[in-house]
Structures are given as C-alpha cells and as structure tokens.
C-alpha cells in the first residue's frame, strides 16, 4: 500500500528538476513586488505556479484585485478539467478524501499520473505521493527564491526572471503553428489596446477575443 505512495514520489522527482528553478524564480521575483509573507503565502495556499507568476506580473502593473482574481480564475479553469480527468481513476467517494486530494491537482501531478493510468496501478496514494512531492518542492524552492531575492541586486537582470519563466512556459504550451499564431494575435491585441485601456483590461479582452478566434480558426481548419 505504501508502495503506491513512494512510486508516486519517484515518478514525480524528475519533473521536479524543472519545477525547482521555476519556484526559485517565482520567489525571487515575487519578493520584488510583495512582502515575503505574501509571496510565501501564495505558494502555500494557492499552489499554482503559472497563476502565481501571472498574479505577480499583474500586481507589478498595479492591477485591481478584481482583475487579478478574474485572471486567476480564467488561467486556472483548466483545473476543472484536470480534476475531472482524475475522477474515474481516483474513485474518491468520501467527502474527506475529495477535500484532501483536491489541492494536489496540478499540471505536474496530472502529467505523471496520466502515464500511470495506463498501467492500471494508479490510486489515491499515488496521487498523494506525487502531489506531496510537488507541493514540498514548490514550497522549498519558493522559499529559496524569496530568501535569496533581496541578496541579488534588483534591476533588469533579476526582473527578467519572471518574463523568462513565462516565456519558457509559453513556448512549452505552443504545440502547433496555429497556436503560435493565436498567441501572437493575443500579444498584438494587447499591444494595440495597451495605450487606451488599463493594462489589465487589455489583457483580459485580448485573451477572451484571441481564444475565441482561435477556436474558430482551429475548427475551420483543423490541424496545424
């Protein structure tokens, strides 16, 4: 029984190599715009790397809480589907199990778990092992980033940690030429609206509009 837990841990460790610098970069850049408590708190209770980075980016641009919460909701909507994907494999009937496992639904645990689904050996303990590994790694690396942040001189170099991480993520998400075009469209719209509207509204409008156009393009001409 405990086997399953440790298998979850082991399968997840390689992925952590990518998470660690991400966490450190998050901590180091978050601490430029937030207090240490806030930066660490976000990692502890939100536990969503992309959303945390995006939130810090928005805060740096002076966005209102409503925009940040809405963007967080939009960006994290994928958790609905990821969580749904887990359900048939978890068979978590008891409420307490659902409540406790929910925070472990993250990109990394989904990726690692979905491989295990094929072997029919997946169960709740696997997710627990995978999720705790990811959670602890995220907390430790965020902390490392937060603590070392102030030691590094602030300035364009350190501030580039955030855009560099976002670029890294963005490139991983662009899996076809069509998606690349959709991303460029979003960028273009944002730039066009940027001078007229508060930055953060231009981001939301660009996102909703280009994602919609993207759906239409991809349904019209499937494939890249």
């Amino acid at each position, binding site marked *: 029984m405990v086997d399953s837990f440790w298998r979850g841990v082991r399968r997840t460790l390689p992925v952590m190599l990518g998470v660690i610098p991400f966490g450190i970069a998050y901590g180091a850049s978050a601490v430029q715009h937030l207090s240490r408590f806030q930066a660490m708190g976000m990692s502890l209770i939100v536990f969503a790397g992309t959303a945390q980075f995006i939130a810090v980016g928005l805060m740096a641009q002076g966005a209102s809480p409503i925009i940040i*919460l809405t963007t967080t909701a939009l960006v994290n909507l994928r958790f609905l589907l990821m969580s749904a994907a887990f359900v048939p494999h978890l068979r978590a009937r008891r409420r307490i199990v659902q409540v406790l496992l929910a925070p472990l639904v993250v990109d990394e645990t989904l990726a690692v778990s979905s491989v295990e689904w094929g072997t029919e050996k997946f169960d709740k303990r696997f997710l627990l092992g995978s999720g705790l590994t990811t959670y602890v790694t995220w907390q430790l690396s965020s902390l490392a980033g937060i603590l070392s942040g102030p030691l590094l001189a602030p300035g364009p170099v350190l501030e580039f940690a955030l855009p560099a991480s976002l670029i890294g993520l963005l490139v991983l998400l662009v899996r076809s030429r069509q998606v690349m075009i959709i991303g460029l469209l979003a960028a273009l719209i944002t730039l066009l609206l940027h001078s007229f509207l508060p930055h953060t509204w231009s981001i939301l409008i660009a996102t909703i509009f280009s994602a919609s156009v993207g759906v239409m393009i991809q349904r019209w001409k499937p494939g890249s």
Partner: protein
Amino acid sequence: MILGMALITYLLRYLPLAWLSHMQLPDWFVHWLKLVPVTVLAAILAPTLIMPQNKVDFTLSNVHFWAAIPTVLVAWRSRNIMSTIAIGMATAALLHYLI
C-alpha cells in the same frame, strides 16, 4: 486577495471531484479553455517586453526585449525551463552590463 486566489483555485480543483466529473462540456468550450493559458501568457508578456514604459521601445536599453530573443530560442530548442531561465538571465546580464 491572496486568500481569494486560494479559495478560487481550491474550488476549481475541488468541485469536479465533488460533483463527479461526468459533465458533458460542449466541445467548443473545452477547446476554448485549452487556449486560455497560451493567450493569457502572451498577453502578459507582450507589454512587458515591448512597451515597458507604455511606449514601444526597440532600443537596446530595453534589455528585456532583446534578452527575450535568445530566451525564446533556448525555450524552443531545449523545452527546458531551467535552461531557459538561466540563459535568459545570463543574456539579460550580458546586455545590461555591456550597454
């Protein structure tokens, strides 16, 4: 507000588990959701890289824009966040201290 983010994120993860996921989401909606992360990231990055002070700036003093170019290339080739961040920041440092 961080509490708000935590609550929203938690609910997003919890509700499907609680409701049992065999909701039939319309295809177009699922499709739309898949495009949201890409578009949000692109929308966030574009102004910070290209219009840092609300004006289009392609001069060399806009270190972020020029450092972004090798960053994108490294991200594209390596598909590795670690290398991307490392090379990106190294380039930024190079540009910052040479210009």
